[in-house]
């Protein structure tokens, strides 16, 4: 938090912004191409999600400038995602295990 590091007033370079934009476009094309390969079941989902995550990382880090921000803002973003995952995960504990084997003892 020293003086030379003015939080949030980081000025991004044009080159960086365009590189990220181009990178995102390439990833978009890539994900469409991969999906038309018709990969077997878990792989297609995983590849699509991996690419989406990579894109999200780029947007959050560079476009949203989290790299140069107060840490707490990144904590908020990650926290939100964690809570979303908890919500999904715990709900799935119900919906995926409705048909159950009851242990007899």
């Amino acid at each position, binding site marked *: 938090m020293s003086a030379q590091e003015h939080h949030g007033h980081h000025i991004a370079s044009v080159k960086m912004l365009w590189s990220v934009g181009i990178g995102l476009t390439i990833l978009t094309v890539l994900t469409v191409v991969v999906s038309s390969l018709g990969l077997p079941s878990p792989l297609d989902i995983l590849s699509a999600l991996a690419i989406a995550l990579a894109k999200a990382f780029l947007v959050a880090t560079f476009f949203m400038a989290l790299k140069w921000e107060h840490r707490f803002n990144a904590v908020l973003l990650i926290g939100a995602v964690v809570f979303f995952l908890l919500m999904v995960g715990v709900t799935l504990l119900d919906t995926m295990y409705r048909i159950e084997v*009851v*242990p*007899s*003892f």
Partner: protein
Amino acid sequence: MGRLFDFMLPDNKSPLTADSTDGLFHFINEVSLIFLVGITIALIYFAIKYKRKSEDDKTPVITHNNTLEITWSVIPLLIVMVVFGWGYSGWLNLKAVPNDAYEIQATGYKWNWNFNYENGAQTLNELHVPKGRPIKVVMQSRDVLHSFFIPDYRVKHDVVPGRYTYVWFQAEETGESVIFCTEYCGTSHSDMLAKVIVHEPNEFEQWLELNGGGIQGTPVEQGEQLVSLQGCQTCHSIDGSPKIGPTFKGIWEREQQLTDGSTVVVDENYIRESILYPGNKVVAGYQNVMSPYEGRLSDDEITNIIEYLKTIN
């Protein structure tokens, strides 16, 4: 047994399902009482002992005490873990139906319970069971959520449309117990009561024999039985008084004003339509709350009901 909180619980009439629950209920109540008395005494004692003498009172600086704090975190933690384990095992027991359980089908709908037995016997709002034998009630709902609750047996489960759910119990004494619907389901939710009637095993066999084979008699008689089994009279009176739905008295060829302002004359087709798709033509002054009977009554059964309705004057 004479536990302190016995007065809170209804009689235990199905020890196999209720004992664990009751034991835990008493345990939690008693431990809680000890804590509550402790807390109350501490509050009153401190309030008196450390009453403010003057505005210049000096108080010691006690910021924290790790030993004390760990103690009062860990002891309750241990107690609640015991409670968790106890509750969990009791609950598993409630889910694990004995293999030799006698199965009865139950259907909940606004605002009745229908019970079906293996030999075709049907009852409305009366669950007949033999004593001393595990009973599994398999439940389904025709419309909204209901919940099947027998306080005397400590069993309860929601009845969910589109799914089967179940409860089991084993009644150990003859007599009657009340069944409540505990999931809010509309106007007559609180009247959606039924009772368990526990028979001696041989009496139960006789009862089953007597009521087996389903509905018999002339069309009018059959219609009458159907109307009573389907619980139509929960909402439709036969003495002319208005209930949740219009009365059956004098219904035949009556002119009815509908909610959209038009009128119909009650004939076979109107009754048929109103049974199968009750929301289509609702009589003015009434709500559209009846569950559709589409797929639940056969054409012959509907004909019999119509024959019966013609006779109510």
